[in-house]
């Protein structure tokens, strides 16, 4: 899955003087207030953070209310989906005209009929709707399956993703992980990808330290 990364950030947290006797709590609540919201500064959504260290000295900033600026280093786990990225989500609703999935449990994605490639056909069996591939009947998408799709567009405020199943290497991840390597040569690879297969990605998802860390320096105002 793309779009997840760990960043090392140098932050300055501005703390209200009323919190001067509980700096640590103030820093944590300040950072927590950023969780699950899109932040332009990070160009993504903060999923988790860890304060690595903070400077011993803090400056009192002049102003109407003299806030305390505490410098600290933190590692941030960010989710920043961009158009044409491959991301994965769990299907929560599936109908004749659309597939709805949630990504990482909080961001919602919808794939409309026009964005589902013709290979998939809607079928109902025993009252349960599925999208089944015409070429391989084992390749099917139903409620509960994990799918890989590409990001078409994104509503940053609500993290509402409009996805697409048009590229050939999208679909149910179970099936793709088994067959992608064999078929890779036959498929057109229009979009830059640097991952080999889904199994490894799952491992990555479990262990954030696997992620390549990008060094960034950001400052944050409250």
């Amino acid at each position: 899955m793309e779009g997840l990364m760990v960043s090392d950030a140098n932050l300055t947290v501005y703390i209200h003087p009323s919190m001067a006797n509980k700096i640590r709590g103030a820093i944590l609540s300040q950072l927590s207030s950023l969780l699950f919201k899109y932040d332009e500064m990070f160009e993504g959504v903060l999923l988790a953070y860890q304060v690595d260290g903070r400077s011993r000295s803090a400056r009192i900033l002049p102003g109407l209310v003299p806030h305390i600026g505490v410098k600290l280093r933190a590692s941030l786990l960010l989710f920043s989906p961009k158009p044409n990225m491959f991301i994965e989500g769990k299907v929560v609703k599936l109908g004749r005209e659309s597939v709805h999935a949630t990504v990482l449990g909080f961001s919602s994605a919808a794939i409309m009929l026009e964005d589902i490639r013709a290979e998939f056909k809607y079928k109902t069996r025993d009252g349960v709707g599925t999208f089944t591939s015409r070429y391989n009947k084992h390749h099917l998408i139903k409620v509960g399956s994990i799918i890989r799709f590409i990001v078409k567009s994104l509503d940053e405020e609500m993290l509402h993703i409009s996805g697409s199943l048009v590229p050939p290497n999208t679909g149910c991840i179970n099936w793709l992980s088994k067959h992608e390597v064999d078929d890779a040569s036959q498929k057109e690879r229009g979009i830059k990808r640097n991952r080999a297969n889904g199994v490894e990605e799952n491992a990555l998802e479990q262990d954030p330290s696997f992620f390549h860390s990008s060094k960034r320096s950001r400052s944050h105002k409250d």
Partner: protein
Amino acid sequence: MGIEPVRSDMAIQEVEDGYLSDSAVHSSIAEILERVSKPPNMVAERDKDLYEQLLVIVNPLTRKKNLDEEILFATALKALSGVVYKISTIYHASLLRNIFSMCIWDYGLDTRTALLELIANLAVVPDKFLEDSLEMLVRNFQPPERMCGYICQTRWRGERKRINGQLHETLCSITHLVPLAPFKLKGILHRMMPTFRTRKALLVTFVECMLGLESNEIGEYLSSTLLSMVVDLLVDLDVNITWEDILKEDHNRSIFDMEVEDLENNAENNSVGSQIVCRKGEGFGDLKYNMTDKLDCVMVIVCEHIKSSACDGRLVKIFETLIESFLKTVLNAHKSKFSQFIFFYACSLDPEICGLKFAILLTDIFVSKTEDPISRMSAIAYVASFLSRARFISSAVVSSIVKRLVEWCYDFCYVQASTERIKNPRGHRLFYAGCQAVMYILCFRMRLLMDIPELKEILFNLPLEAILCHPLDPLRVCLPTIVQEFLRQAMAAHLLKKPFLSCDPNDLLESEFSKAFGGVERLDMFFPFDPYLLKQSDRFMRPNFEFWSMVKKTYSNFNSDDDFDDLDPESADEGSHDGLDDEELVDEDGEDDLGCSMNNMSITPRPVFEMATASGGSIPIPSRMPARIRPSVSPI
């Protein structure tokens, strides 16, 4: 999107014909939508007409006259929910406007279901309609203006429950698909929450629906917001009732004129798109609302909600959030009168956990050095009133808190303020408030504490005399009525050995001091849990409420085996003319005798008291609470 797979299958099995004609409607509507999805000058006349026809069918303003029309409408809605992805914000703006301004209260069950399904489907289309959909649902938390007259009647209760249930279901299904929807919902609720000026029926249905949300899935995310919004509303209503209104309540209903501008704003908000009901012409009789009545009804809803969550075993969780909003709003609201009783009620449902927590939290605030003095003053007022009035709080808890308070007072006068030897009511107001609280609690609880040997021993070991004799002289500063009663009970129980000068009633008139320590807010006279005066919600409070008349005093009604029978004759004489003790037990069910049970242990600022002090010298007239608010003559 749209039709659930299970549903469509059922449709195939059951009514094959119906399904086919439905699907024909679906495809034709999809076609119309597609054809008008281009710049207006490129749309063919015929398509325009068809689209217009669709708008006529899907129109919130035309009431559906007969069943056929309603069925056609429902079918159109179902068809639209199948093709939501074809609806564009640019080309179908008028259609969307019509859909989002509909009022689900206007339609029957089937149509409502279809409409809500359409809304749910629109909400999950990425990046487009979420906000509008949520807003439409929240607007439907309350009925349209024209239904105000009868919506609260009991025969509508079932319907109201059904509609609320459907709204909750829709919101939950949206949350299931868009997990971050509650964040958005929070903002919308804040924006659309009715104010205390809103008409009673609308306010009540909205709050009812909102609290219903708290107990389902969305409550996981929004519990604290929803509860704090309700508490804020209660405080708003509360502070708009003045004591003057209550005092003259008995015969004149307190009626609040509503500002016309506000009503107009509300009318617009409540019926966007639907008929704006113009009430201006109907005379100003309709514009007058009764704040106490509204507060009473909202209190009933909140108490019922707390009760139901206690049945579900969620009380402790809810109490956490309630306490937060208590600290934020209620504690520092200037003499709030009734809203604090929801905490009283919540505590009464779980005295061991919630009641204890509440009492300890308040004591902590009082003792804490970092809290601001006003909060500490109100906290001590709450502790005193709560421990005295809450029948469910065990004597052991009372004794431990009294002990803590006495220790704090002792510490204050012998350690912190040891250098100052003069009465300074304003400077030492926390100390005086603490002493007054101890005395007030003991007035109510002394007898009960005396009945348990261990607690009696604790009480006798407290340095009460040392505090009362200290040069800071709390007996002359605290409220005379409390001091008098306390001394009387303490003497009878032999809690105090030395005779106190202040036993002389004429000595107790220095209420100027007590005024000074209470400050302009008169926090010396703030007793948050004085008898509850709202009529309908009284049933929640009454069973656990200790009325002064029911308090067993140390000096009266002795059983033969009691060890206090050597009653101090002096104090007995005193008692005969201060009007404190000869109250008879109130019949709990009788409403009329409630008035006489409100005696001077319920102290409320009122002119009588000041007059008594101004006249100087005479015995203070025991302050009396008004009997009871009779908020509304009209049935709900």
